[in-house]
């Protein structure tokens, strides 16, 4: 059954090949799918972006103030430890974003919502940037603390492989021109990758114990002062807000690009200008 662009927006699904769910299912899913059509989501995200970016800026200022200004100097590592206020939240974000990508991919493959593929695609560059940031700041921390830019530590190595997974996703999706195939192929890759991430982490840890890696372990860090923890949590929240704002902004761009032929996009004030 072929649906016109506007009708498809109402359904919010890519294909409605007759295997539609029964009425009760539709009601239950109604709330869930309210913002699944790109058109509705475009409006919602437009309203949300200022809030998330504002919160991101405020939390970054607060986090940096607590982290760089108020938190005490570390007894063992001196001032150099302060890079963890960027490093740790960046590593967390890189992993969270991959899980979010797997979540959207799962939704996209099971419910065939068009938005899911765009969400996954919008999250990938941010995740890759955070993985890179985490490795970069890790190297800058490692040089004064371990005496080496790079150590074949289990965490470093698995973070590097996570970065490769992000780059693989971006490379695959940018090589496919057809948007439907791009979304689905990307979703399969993200899901396969997400199954592999824990296995990779486990295997690298195992490998590391065999090879006698770094003698200093980040897990054995002394218990943190409250202010350090606060600074780190503020920065983590700031990164969350930043990621959401940037991903939403990117999704809006993707929506405009994909739906550029539809009437609702062409009647938008920002497009008419």
């Amino acid at each position: 059954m072929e649906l016109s662009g506007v009708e498809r927006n109402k359904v919010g699904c890519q294909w409605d090949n007759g295997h539609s769910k029964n009425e009760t299912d539709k009601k239950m899913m109604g709330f869930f799918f309210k913002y699944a059509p790109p058109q509705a989501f475009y409006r919602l995200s437009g309203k949300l972006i200022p809030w998330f970016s504002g919160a991101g800026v405020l939390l970054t200022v607060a986090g940096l103030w607590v982290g760089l200004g108020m938190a005490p100097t570390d007894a063992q590592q001196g001032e150099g430890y302060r890079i963890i206020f960027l490093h740790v939240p960046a590593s967390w974000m890189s992993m969270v974003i991959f899980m979010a990508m797997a979540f959207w991919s799962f939704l996209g493959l099971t419910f065939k919502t068009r938005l899911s593929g765009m969400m996954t695609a919008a999250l990938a560059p941010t995740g890759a940037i955070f993985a890179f940031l985490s490795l970069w700041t890790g190297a800058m921390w490692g040089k004064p603390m371990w005496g080496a830019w790079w150590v074949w530590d289990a965490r470093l190595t698995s973070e590097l492989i996570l970065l490769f997974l992000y780059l693989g996703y971006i490379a695959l999706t940018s090589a496919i021109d057809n948007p439907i195939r791009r979304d689905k192929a990307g979703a399969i890759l993200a899901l396969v990758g997400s199954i592999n991430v824990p296995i990779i982490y486990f295997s690298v840890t195992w490998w590391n114990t065999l090879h006698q890696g770094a003698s200093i372990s980040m897990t054995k860090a002394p218990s943190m002062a409250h202010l350090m923890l606060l600074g780190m949590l503020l920065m983590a929240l700031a990164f969350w807000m930043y990621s959401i704002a940037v991903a939403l902004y990117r999704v809006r761009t993707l929506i405009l690009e994909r739906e550029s032929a539809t009437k609702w996009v062409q009647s938008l004030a920002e497009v008419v200008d």
Partner: protein
Amino acid sequence: MKAFTAILKRDLRVAMHRKVEVLSGLFFYLVVATLFPLAIGSDLDILRRIAPGILWVGALLSSMLTLGRLFEADWQDGSLEQLVLTPHNLSLLVFAKIISHWTLCGLPLVILAPVLGLMFDLPIEFVLVLMGTLLIGTPILSCLGAIASALTLGLRGGGVLISLLVLPLFVPVLVFGSGAVESLAAGLGSQAYFSILMAMLMPAVFFSPWACATALRVAFE
């Protein structure tokens, strides 16, 4: 089941007509293994230590190189589209293709490995463990690689793209495959490594044909 065996037979027969293609992967493995001593030096103590790693990385690269052949030729002559259109279970048909890929590109590596192992002066029990890990590990490589091969079907820059997608996923297999020999050398035994490799093989065999079938359907939509 009839379709399964038919595809298996057909793929093997086609490969027999293009013997060079099958042998090129094997030849690549041999050349890579020869390059390392030339680059590192002929000190047998060093070579013996790094041999499991070299032989595993070589096997990994060789099976990666041959992945393009898995679906590409069938896609170009249109027979892959016919397979997707048949009423048979596509996962099962894809599974047959994965098995034939392993028989043609994975199994020869396992058989060649002991010869290369002797070139690196590995003791015989190490060679046997290496063969064992390759025997369990190379099917995992074929399974994971088939997914990447199906995803990149017909894309520009497909070959390089496959390696980008597949190499990070190969990491666990590489770690446990080459780790088994090293662990044996350290006097710790290699039993655990075999168990873990088997534990990775099972889900790979179970899920990979399904993921491949989905990816192929996507490619033909």
